[in-house]
């Protein structure tokens, strides 16, 4: 009796499920899928190659290469294609609006305020200054931007007047 490979029946679902298991190296509670960094996914008809596009959050993000390797290894383990290629792309810029609703909840639950939606802003120039970022701990909107630059390229530092805690927020970009 031949037991079909679990990935054989619905390869797309298997690929996306595998990607959803790859965490962001810097904020491991969120996956690369919920972070929105996965672009196109193409499996060749003859299964010779699986090509995945990776959209870096920040161009200089030192976690990008770690992410690329982790995605490559996880997909190779699926055994779905002879070769797996993970390629960086800037053809369309990653923006923080690509983070999913589930991803936003995961960020909040681990103490990072999710980024405000860019579509609420009128201009790029207003990015970090005019938006209200609710405190991820107490939900207060009485928060102030302390530093638009934080411990990693993608984070800013805020202070909450409600619970008197500093907190980090994912930058809208």
């Amino acid at each position, binding site marked *: 009796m031949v037991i079909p490979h679990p990935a054989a029946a619905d390869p797309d679902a298997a690929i996306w499920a595998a990607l959803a298991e790859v965490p962001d190296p810097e904020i491991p509670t969120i996956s690369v899928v919920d972070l929105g960094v996965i672009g196109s996914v193409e499996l060749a008809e003859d299964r010779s190659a699986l090509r995945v596009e990776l959209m870096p959050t*920040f*161009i*200089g*993000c*030192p976690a990008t290469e770690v992410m690329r390797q982790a995605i490559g290894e996880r997909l190779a383990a699926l055994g779905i294609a002879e070769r797996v290629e993970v390629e960086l*792309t*800037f*053809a*369309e*810029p*990653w*923006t923080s609006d690509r983070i999913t609703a589930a991803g936003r909840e995961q960020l909040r639950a681990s103490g990072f305020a999710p980024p405000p939606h860019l579509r609420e802003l009128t201009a*790029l*120039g207003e*990015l*970090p*200054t005019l938006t209200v970022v609710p405190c991820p701990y107490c939900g207060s909107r009485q928060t102030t931007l*302390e*530093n*638009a*630059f*934080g*411990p990693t*390229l993608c984070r800013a*530092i805020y202070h909450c007047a409600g619970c008197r805690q500093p907190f980090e927020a994912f*930058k809208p*970009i």
Partner: protein
Amino acid sequence: MTDLEPATRDAVAELLLTLADDEFVLGFWDSEWTGIAPMLEEDVATSSIAQDEIGHARAWFELLAELTDDDPDRIAFGRAPEAYRHAALMNHPRTDWAFTVARRFLYETADAVRLEALAGSSHAGIAGLATKMRREETYHLLHWNAWMRRLAEGGPDTRTRLKDALARLWSDAESVFSPLAGEPALLAGGILPESLADLRGRWIERVDAELGSLGLARPTSEAGPPSDGRTARTDDFRWLWGEFTSVARSEAGATW
């Protein structure tokens, strides 16, 4: 884009090298503030901005290496000081904080104008990176504009230091828009959608608007961008080159 005409390919390579070297060298100068910036929050901010710039340089170096079939690390670390093509603005050491703020303001304003144009480049790789960089650089520009105001309104000492730094840096800041040998080819192919002279004009308008709001006058310069603005090198830069290539030179060809 390896199917470009040789002359166009050389022109694109020259442009990419200037873009990369500007970010690379300035990123290294500013990384020197890590640990000694005026306050802790600023230490974090300057370091983060410097890291952004090194990352941007890496992306430009990679695009260049793809075009010329080279190794990005070799381009970044394997050249003699005279082969770097950053603007003369980046030949100076970090000096004091007002000097760093003035240089940053002049450069970020120029870079914003340049990236806006390149976002419309006919070269897909350049347009994609420029579009992404604009979003990151917006944070930088806001940050340094805030520091300009702070120093301009911070009292006689900070205001004088800022004015002196602007005066000292002005002619070298013009070098960001110094002519490139391949500019006609870049313009003809829409790779550079606007001439460097036009970009310089827009840069000066924005500098004037910002300085005007602070009650500061722009240093005058009749000469415009010097022709050797991207080739003149200084002992200060040679010292920095010695620092940032020290690891690569310690063991040629090593990988890590």
